[in-house]
């Protein structure tokens, strides 16, 4: 097993303690309205607000930075694409790279997009870093009335995910032991990857089927209304978190309109 169970957040932090559904809902309510605008000001303010709230989740900046690291790839991708293909080449000319003119207009559009990526993704990252998957599934069933068959089933499947890493390693080693390697041939590399992935998939399906049978044998499909060994409570504080998140997002949008930064997507 490669999954680490070390807590990444202080569970007693005032916002980390909130109901998982409330946290996830708050993240959505805060970040979705931000998508309405294309300007750099709005996501920048949102990011600042997110940073201010971070301590109340009891999660360290380093942890968030590590989990957000894959976003850098997306950011670089956006930057390159915009510099090469942006239609709007307004503003001052900064550098001319052959046929590509890099202007202030291009950079500000690209910068806005990059900021948007981070501003929208960060709340989700923080919520999942501070939420136990079991608590989330419980809250989804108990507070959001999600079907238990879906939420608990997904939770059980999620538990098998770390096994895939180990399995991939042994499948790759077994292929080498069988005399199969790709050498420097890129076509062979792709084929080897595909065949290993297929074997991984077959193994995962078989394990999934066995787990499903074992779960049904313990009454998962009994049709009896489930009881809850672990109660998740949705308190007024959780409602307040939802309302405040939406309000904060709307305030930021209002400010950006008032200051003339607002630039609707359509």
């Amino acid at each position, binding site marked *: 097993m490669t999954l680490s*169970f070390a807590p990444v957040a202080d569970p007693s932090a005032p916002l980390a303690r909130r109901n998982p559904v409330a946290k996830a809902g708050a993240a959505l309510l805060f970040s979705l309205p931000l998508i309405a605008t294309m300007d750099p000001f709005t996501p920048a303010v949102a990011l600042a607000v997110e940073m201010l709230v971070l301590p109340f989740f009891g999660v360290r900046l380093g942890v968030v930075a590590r989990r957000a690291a894959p976003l850098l790839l997306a950011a670089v991708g956006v930057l390159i694409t915009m510099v090469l293909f942006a239609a709007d080449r307004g503003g001052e000319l900064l550098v001319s790279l052959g046929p590509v003119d890099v202007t202030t207009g291009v950079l500000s559009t690209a910068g806005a997009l990059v900021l948007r990526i981070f501003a929208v993704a960060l709340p989700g990252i923080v919520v999942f870093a501070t939420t136990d998957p079991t608590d989330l599934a419980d809250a989804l069933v108990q507070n959001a009335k999600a079907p238990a068959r879906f939420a608990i089933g997904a939770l059980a499947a999620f538990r098998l995910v770390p096994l895939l890493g180990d399995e991939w390693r042994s499948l790759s080693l077994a292929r080498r032991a069988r*005399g199969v390697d790709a050498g420097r041939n890129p076509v062979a590399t792709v084929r080897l990857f595909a065949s290993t992935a297929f074997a991984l998939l077959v193994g995962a399906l078989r394990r999934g089927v066995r787990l499903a049978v074992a779960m049904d044998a*313990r009454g998962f499909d009994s049709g009896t209304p489930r009881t809850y060994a672990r109660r998740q409570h949705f308190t007024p504080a959780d409602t307040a978190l939802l309302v405040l998140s939406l309000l904060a997002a709307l305030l930021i949008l209002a400010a950006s309109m008032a200051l003339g930064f607002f630039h609707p997507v359509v």
Partner: protein
Amino acid sequence: MSDVQLRDFGWRHAGRRAWAVRGLDLEVRHGERVLLLGPSGAGKSTLLAALAGLLPSDSGESEGTIRIDGLDPRKARERVGILFQDPQTQIVMARSGDDVAFGPENRGVPAGEIWPRVSDVLDRVGFPYSINRPTAALSGGEAQRLALAGVLALRPGLLLLDEPTANLDPPGAALIRDAVARATGPETTLIIVEHRVAEALPLVDRVVVLEPGGGVRADGTPELIFAAYGDKLADEGVWVPGFPAAPLKATSKATPDLVRATRAEVSGRLGPVTIEAGGGEVLAVTGPNGAGKSTLALLLGGLLAPTSGRVEAFGDKRPPHRWRAATLAGRIGSVFQNPEHQFVTSRVVDELALGPRRLGRSPADVERIVGELLERLRLTHLAEANPYTLSGGEARRLSVATALATAPRLLVLDEPTFGQDRRTWRELVDLLAGLRDDGHGIIAVTHDDAFVRTLADRTVPLGAPEPDPLPRRTRP
């Protein structure tokens, strides 16, 4: 308390020509403890699935009747609990207590009663940790104990155990045996399928032997059954106590080293080990779980680089993990613990032809090698089958055959006899003894005492500071 009544019961899985079970008349009364035996393919697991109500009526064809307390098993699900082989695919939740609570939640047990029930049942199976113990941190035997607790938390009147120790090492198997003995009282009817009879014998008072063609061959107390049918059952692959295998030790001296590891170490997985193995000997590597036995097998098989120390083989200046895969396969054959990890193609013949083709053998040679191996490992009738559809014993034979196809001088096997019935076990041992006598070197990582006693010329216990002295070896 539940009783079971089968009248001329039969079941055929959809799409199969043969009946998995047929013509079965059997009665098991309240509180009886039954060991269900029979050669592989006699339909034991199908019967348990039918009793557990896990065969939906549209998944096959049934005949006769099957009743639990007079009810169809699909309607008697609340009275029946079933424990499967693999703990990994039975644990649902991330925390141990939550996992035990999963069943009671499903059955609508009032929340206030769940936690007392959970701690009671964890005590009964002897679970040594708190309810917050992450299930990912449990050993195989501990996880299987937890899975048993999860089944018992539903208070089944009929408890079905489907080879509950087949995936466990001997200490893990002992944990489960004790847990079943401690946790099930006279009020539970028990039916166990287990081909390692010695594991199950202390738990049962009745043995039922199924006939592969259908029906019951024998039924009675363990003493009577084994006196009358012991040798036949042993021939058919059942691990009947009192039929030890005759030792097969090397008759000639080992040749110089094929592989040698010098203070080789893999950080976090294997402490520094110095070990060598030559042709014409079987070297058994034993030791407790976590001692790094499988890691050592990977090191010696050229599949893993040591973090420090050296591994040398076949007089090559380059260490085995730097060899091209085709070179490696021609020199060292590795057989993994899970045969399915090893299969690359979708037909048994292609699987066998793969290695020789990668080594550039001519089509005629490939055909000859494949034909010989199919014959030798009794796989000819399965030549066109998909490797993933083979039974456990067949898959094991194929995985060994694939390693042999490139005619490597050294064979490294990880738990080759794990979970095998006595017949496959015997075939493997004979095959490996033959290879050894032809001058091949064989390294086997194993928990299997019978395998070590029967075949090993030398044993290296891992976790101990120094290997055994080498009385039977001569240095050139």
